[in-house]
């Protein structure tokens, strides 16, 4: 494997708070997903590899060249930040052309590249509107456009799918995959497993500033599948609902919430449970008021993985 991005003993502290702890990692071409719960260190890692932060210990290189205070390497890197921030007084077109000026392209090339990037993200029609008037999805897409407009070899996307509706997510996932098909390196962070799963089979699990695992989806899936999920179902008749699940082998434990209207289920097979629940609700005429998963988040899964 030829490493495009390489981190060696990379550590970052915010005062006494540990942001990243001795991370050694090689990222090769193709799409790599950086998966971890909020506060795991994903954004810190991304900021270190894009030269926005200086490591306290260790170093990070892109194609063997150091990143901090080395602007030349950014000719080949496109970065899409996590924050929903822009120069709001600009139109989408001005935003992309404005940032393209910093690559030394000629004015006509800047216009061509901006038009192409905005066309890719399907913003041509709205390119002359002020960014402050854009929807969340459009803002995410224009952010993506500025990251790819200069045709970078490496694209680094920090939570690019966050806040998008399902259709917007599907479109952006397709764009990212197209980028990979062109032989580029894409690093995408997310705290949602299915998002990473939709993009790539190659992922890095990060938690509490450490790399927990690096590998393909089946391995991680297996780890996550073995973690019991807690699901809380509030309904008009929780006991009738519980009766329907008593014989279900996917259920490990059931209890009733203090309000007497909630059934709390623990299962290893979350997808199976939800599949069954739909059938039970339809057949039994039980009214469901709310379904929530008190620990259905990566934080819980990762804590389980760490404990394991």
């Amino acid at each position, binding site marked *: 494997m030829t490493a495009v991005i390489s981190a060696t003993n990379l550590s970052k502290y*915010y005062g006494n708070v540990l942001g990243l702890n001795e991370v050694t990692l090689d990222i090769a071409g193709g799409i790599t997903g950086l998966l971890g719960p909020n506060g795991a260190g994903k954004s810190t890692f991304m900021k270190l590899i894009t*030269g*926005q932060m*200086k490591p306290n210990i260790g170093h990070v290189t892109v194609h063997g060249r150091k990143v901090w205070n080395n602007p030349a390497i950014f000719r080949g890197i496109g970065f899409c*930040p996590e924050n929903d921030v822009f120069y709001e*007084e600009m139109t989408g077109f001005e935003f992309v052309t404005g940032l393209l000026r*910093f*690559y*030394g392209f000629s004015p006509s090339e800047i216009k061509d590249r901006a038009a192409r990037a905005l066309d890719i993200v399907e913003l041509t029609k709205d390119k002359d509107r002020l960014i402050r008037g854009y929807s969340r999805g459009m803002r995410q897409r224009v952010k993506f456009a500025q990251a790819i407009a200069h045709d970078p070899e490496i694209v680094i996307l920090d939570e690019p799918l966050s806040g998008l509706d399902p259709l917007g997510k599907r479109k952006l996932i397709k764009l990212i995959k197209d980028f990979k098909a062109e032989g580029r390196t894409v690093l995408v962070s997310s705290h949602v497993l299915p998002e990473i799963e939709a993009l790539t089979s190659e992922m890095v699990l990060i938690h509490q500033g450490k790399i927990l695992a690096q590998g393909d989806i089946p391995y991680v899936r297996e780890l996550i599948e073995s973690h019991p999920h807690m699901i809380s179902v509030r309904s008009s008749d929780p006991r009738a609902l519980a009766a329907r699940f008593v014989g279900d082998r996917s259920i490990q434990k059931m209890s009733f919430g203090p309000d007497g209207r909630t059934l709390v289920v623990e299962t290893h097979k979350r997808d199976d449970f939800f599949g069954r629940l739909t059938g039970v609700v339809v057949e039994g005429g039980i009214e469901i008021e709310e379904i929530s998963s008190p620990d259905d988040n990566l934080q819980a899964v990762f804590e389980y993985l760490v404990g394991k």
Partner: protein
Amino acid sequence: MNAKKAVREVFGFFLSLGRRTGKTRVFALLGLVPVILAVVVRVVLHGRTGDMAAVFTEVLMVFFLQFYIVILALFYGTSVVAEEVEGRTLSYLITRPLPKPAILLGKYAAYSLLMFLMVAVSLTFSFFIMNAGRLADARLYPAFLGYLGVLGLGILAYTAFFTFLGTFLKKAILVGLVFGFGWENVIQYFPGSTQRFSVVHYLKSLLPYRPMGGGGGGVALLLFRLEPTPPSLAVAMLALIAGAFLALACWLFRTKEYLYEE
């Protein structure tokens, strides 16, 4: 991209962006104050053309020198870096093939030009309204250019200092207010060499007309207690102030790590 071209591109980006912000609209409106004052003075002193130079220097230049350019430089200078950090847009700039000093210098230059244009428009109207009765007098125009030059130098020096403050401190505005309206307003009236520790001393030393030297009244005694520095030295000092603080700001911006507040 070489550093010069990088500065030019950043300059163009922020000149275009800066002229349409709410901040620019507010400060451009503030520039109407001396114009209105000029109209009022003109009406009150109708027919007394001889007093205009003294009145202009004592009243309007005080507004320009000790308020308008200071407040402009304070808000634009401290925001060169701070608004990128607070707005979290710094990521868009420092992940480009731009040397960090070029980002700072380009934005400084763009904001300085914006401020200069605002000041120039305001000065032009107020000066020529005040002197509407003697527009045929050829001495008027070099004096106008002299005032404009002094204000331009003031913008460059103050903005460089406030840019440095904004690069260095989180609460730069507060420190800047204390400096601009505290230190500068007090120190300039100290006798002897103490007044030379203020920027405004060098600016006042360059004014084409000074009441202390030519007939200012009681107000002038308060506003222009000046032991002037020779013009060439004053220009050199202002250039040194601007250059030194810009160099410091560039060095800091290059080495310092800016973290966004969560």
